[in-house]
Structures are given as C-alpha cells and as structure tokens.
C-alpha cells in the first residue's frame, strides 16, 4: 500500500493528488462548484441535450402505456428483448461505483477517494435507469406493484418466491436502497463544509439541513468511520450478489445459451468491466471541464484502465468457456446455439463483441494507450457498446433459434425500442449534470485525509 502522496519521482508514478494541495485548496477546488452562482455555458448546453432525451423517454413511455407492448419489436419466440438487455446493461454499469466505494475501501486503496463520489452517483442513476425497464416492460406499470412486491393485495396473490425474477426484485431494490444510503452517509461531512462556506442564506440553510447539523466531533467521526466500514463491508457481498442474481434470471432457465453455471462470475466481471469503462467515459471529460486534473490524476485514469483490462480478460475467458462448454456438453442444442451465434442470423453481433471485448481491450496493456486520454475516452465508449452487444447476443440469439426450428424467427427492434433506450440516457445525464452542479463531486474530507495536515504520529 502506498501511504505517501509524496512518492519519490523515481518510481515514475503520478501521485493520487498532485503536489501543492493543502486542506484549504482541496476544499476550495471542490466546494466552489456547487456554491458558485454561475451556470457554465457548456453545462447548460449538455443539460439541454439531456432534457431533450429525457423528453423522448417520457414520450416513449407515454406511448407505451397508452398503446401497449405491440410497439416493441419483441415477438415469439423472442419474448425477452430490449427491455431486459437494457436493464442488465444499466445495472451492470452501476457495479463499478460500488466496487470503487466499497471494495476498494476495504482494500485501503487510496486512489479511490477522489473518484468514489461521482462513481457512486453514476451507480444510483444507472440503477434508476435500469429500474424503468422491469416496471414498464409489460406496458402496464401499475401492475408491477403486485407481481414485484410482496404486499397484501386485494386479490390475495403473493409473488412466486421460487423464481429468480423475484430474487432479482429483492437484489436490485436492496442494491438501490443501500447505494443511496451509502452515498448520502458519505456526503454528510461535505454538506457541512458547504453549509459553512455558503455565502447565501438559502444555500447555507439547505446544505445545513442535508448535513443534519454535522459538526465533526471526535465522537461523531468515530461512529461515522465505523458505520462507513460496515456499510462497505455489507455493500461488497451485496454488489457481487446483484449481478449474480441477474444472471440467475437466465441461468436458472433451460434455454441453451442461458443455462450455464459460469454465468454468475462472468456477469459480475462483465458488469465491472462495463462500469469502469463508464467511469472513464465520465471522468475524462469531467476532470478536464472542471479543472480537476490535480485531484483526479493520470494515476486514477491508469488504474481504471487497468481494471477495465483485467475484467475484460475475465469476460474473454467467459466467452471461451461458453464455447467450450457448448462443445464439451455433447448436447446438440448447446452445440447448435454456439454455432448459430458464430454463423447464424446475428453473427455480426457476436463477432463485433469479440472484436471489442476480446481484441480491442488488449490495447490497454500498453501504457501509451492508457495515457492517451482521447483514445481512452473513445475506447471506453466502445466498451459500453461491446457489453451491450454481449447482452444482445445472450438474449436474442438464444431465443430466436431455440429447440424447435419451426418456431424460429427473426427479431428486430422498432424505433420505440431505440427511443426508450436512448431516453434513459436523458434521465442518466440529467441526473448526473444536476449532481455535478449541486453536490461536491469529489469527497472533500476523504481526499483531505491523504494530506500531511491530517497525519498523526503514533504516541511515543
């Protein structure tokens, strides 16, 4: 573990905070953004685009509710299509945020501190986008109440607890709740900082309420640190369980291409892979736009690219094993499934995903690539596409050509499928832009703990 921000330059590694920062400059750099009176033009421009997409989401959802799911391309036998693909994709994106805020905290990875807050924000907004699909995929969102949640309804019905779909409800709603709680708890001391620095009375009052009257006493901090560690310890098994349970939605069924024991670890790795790519997609422009290069350094970018590479390799292993299992199983249906993926009607999607998730990701072995921000940004976007295609391949190719050739069909999404998916980006971006503007995007107090001012020598 590296404990010093002043590593010898001979190690040729960028520190997690560039030199020249003290408590005051860290507070100032981060807190001035939510406290400023300015709304930067670039921010407003992005917000307009995001609101446009959000409007499209509302239009698509409105038309869906009025008309029904006939507007989707979903058919027989492809009864699961865009909604589940997008749901799994968004949920997966969220996993990187929890990994950064919880798992890396348990491993005492100090570089996590300046990216954890906005990675967690990403998690929460991604889960919100994901939640739209299970709720709306029947076109009758009000029915979701009784088939999703166990509550005493007038029909005397209860959910089927032996179904992975109900497990998923528990996993995802717990994940959403715990992520929000963890995020909020992590923000309390920073909200007190904003309260104390706010120049306008209204801002001081609002941030004061959100901070709950935090005053940072030794007692407060002690309980706070214990609670944070416990929450991290609880979030770790939670995040691993979420994508495991999502993979059960497929693995517990009998469809060739879904019924595979490798799914849980393979899904979790894929989630973290796509999630870290998304953190890069967000971090690269944000650090530039807000001048955060001294707090989100090239070290962070490098580490995130390395995790993307590592999880990408696990995903590649997953693809290999899927093909191996299909061959080794001796089952003609399994063998056909794999052959169909590689050569059938959706072969383009399979080979594109291999090109991205197996081939392109290898470039991250090179430091030159990991240090090239423009290239890394483009690659992170492509990884997002690759992981979306992975879910497309799993869901659609497996269903379109299943056991009985007479039931085979072609699936193609409609414009409403695409509008709904693009619309969720509007929700995500709107929420993320508001977060950047009104909440300290980097944890002020955590970054400060890395500075010499916070260090205490052991008693002699």
């Amino acid at each position, binding site marked *: 573990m590296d404990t010093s921000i002043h590593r010898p330059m001979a190690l040729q590694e960028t520190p997690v905070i560039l030199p020249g920062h003290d*408590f005051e400059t860290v507070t100032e750099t981060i807190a001035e953004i939510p406290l400023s009176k300015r709304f930067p033009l670039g921010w407003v421009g992005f917000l307009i685009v995001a609101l446009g997409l959000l409007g499209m989401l509302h239009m698509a959802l409105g038309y869906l509710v009025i008309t029904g799911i006939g507007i989707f391309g979903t058919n027989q036998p492809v009864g699961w299509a865009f909604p589940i693909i997008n749901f799994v994709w968004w949920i997966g994106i969220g996993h990187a945020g929890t990994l950064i805020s919880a798992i890396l905290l348990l491993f005492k990875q100090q570089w996590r501190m300046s990216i954890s807050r906005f990675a967690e924000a990403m998690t929460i907004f991604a889960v919100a986008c994901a939640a739209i699909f299970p709720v709306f995929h029947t076109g009758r969102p009000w029915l979701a109440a009784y088939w999703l949640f166990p509550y005493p309804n007038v029909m005397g019905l*209860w959910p089927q607890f032996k179904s992975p779909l109900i497990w998923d409800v528990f996993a995802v709603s717990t994940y959403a709740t715990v992520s929000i709680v963890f995020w909020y708890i992590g923000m309390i001391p920073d909200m007190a*900082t904003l309260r104390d620095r706010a120049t306008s009375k209204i801002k001081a009052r609002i941030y*004061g309420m959100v901070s709950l009257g935090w005053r940072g006493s*030794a007692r407060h*901090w002690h309980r706070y640190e*214990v609670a944070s560690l*416990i929450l991290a310890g609880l979030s770790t098994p939670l995040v691993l369980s979420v994508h495991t349970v999502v993979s059960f939605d497929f693995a517990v069924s009998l469809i060739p291409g879904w019924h595979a024991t490798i799914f849980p670890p393979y899904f979790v790795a894929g989630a973290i892979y796509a999630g870290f790519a998304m953190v890069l997609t967000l971090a690269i422009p944000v650090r530039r736009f807000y001048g955060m290069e001294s707090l989100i350094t090239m070290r962070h970018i490098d580490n995130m690219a390395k995790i993307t590479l590592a999880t990408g390799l696990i995903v590649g292993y997953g693809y290999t094993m899927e093909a191996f299992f299909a061959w080794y199983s001796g089952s003609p249906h399994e063998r056909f499934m794999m052959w169909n993926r590689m050569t059938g009607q959706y072969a383009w999607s399979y080979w594109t995903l291999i090109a991205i998730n197996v081939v392109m990701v290898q470039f991250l072995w090179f430091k030159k690539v990991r240090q090239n921000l423009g290239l890394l940004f483009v690659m992170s976007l492509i990884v997002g596409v690759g992981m979306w295609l992975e879910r497309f391949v799993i869901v659609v190719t497996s269903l379109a050509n299943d056991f009985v050739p007479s039931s085979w069909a072609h699936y193609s999404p409609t414009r409403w499928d695409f509008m709904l998916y693009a619309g969720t980006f509007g929700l995500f971006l709107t929420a993320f832009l508001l977060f950047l503007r009104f909440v300290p995007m980097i944890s002020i107090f955590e970054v400060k703990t890395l500075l010499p001012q916070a260090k205490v020598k052991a008693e002699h």
Partner: protein
Amino acid sequence: MAHTAETTNSLHGVMAEFENAQTLVDAARKTMSQGFTRVEAYTPVPIEELNDIIHKSRTVLPKMVLAGGLAGMATGFALQYWASVLEYPMNIGGRPLASWTTFIVPSYELTILFASLTAAIGMIMLNGLPQPYHPVFNVDRFSMASSDKFFLVIESTDPKFGEATGFLQGAGAKGVYDVAE
C-alpha cells in the same frame, strides 16, 4: 470575549483552535492527562486516535448492525415461508412448498438491507443528529472546523473548568474562544 467567574455558568465551554491534526492530538493528550473530563474535539477529517484519547470507549454500532442483519434474515425467511407455505400454497410439479434453498436469496438481500439501514440510521441517531442547533456554532471561527482548522473544547460542566482557558492558552493553541451556551 473575556469572561469573569460569574458568567462562566452561561458558557458551553472554551474552544481552542489548532493548525493541524498533530498539534490537536498532542493537545488532546495533554488535556486528558491534566485530568479534564468533559472534552470534545472537532476536526475536518476523521482522526482515529482522537476517540481513543478523549472518550476511551467504542461505539455499540456494530452490535446493533448484527442484530439488524439477523432481524432482516428472519424477516425475509418468515415472509417467504408464510406466503409460500401458509397463505398461498401452490403445487408446482410436486415440489415441496417449504423448499428453503430457494428462499436464500431474498433472505440474504434483506439481511444486508436491514443491516445497512441499521448502520446508517444507527450512526445518525447515536450521534444525536439531526441537530439544528449546537453551542459550538456560536463561535465564528468554528466555520473553519469543516475546512482546515482543528478545535478542542473543554465544556463548562468539567469540574476543573476554571483552569480551562489558562491551560488551553498554554497548550499550543492558535486562539482560544469562549463558547456561548
């Protein structure tokens, strides 16, 4: 801001300001070894040592979280058992109604949910939050406690409070202030 013996009773305490964690911790150690008992430190960052020096006791939060987690597990299992076996039994392929292995996932998730909520709400409640008013905020300099200054307060309920101001002035503080009640 100077005070006399008569006004002492309306004070919350005296507050000393320090430049960094090290000087505060040194001062806190000295304060405790001088026999002061009603002491509190306020810092912009968590400092692990301070709680051990000043309060010498650890929070009960972990035990509460364990209880919360167990309650969550019991709730999850009981909910599923009751719904699947007692209230709404459904025979699917002759499988047992109380097939407990399928109940693991929701029970597990509710364990984590209840434990996490206990940790979060427990921390807030044990800390006495939300608390809109506290005397320490009466000191103007205290607004720096969330930025880059470190504070030590000896409260007026301390039996040795009479010596507090003089002691803190000699303890390396950058400034010593009265905290109005």
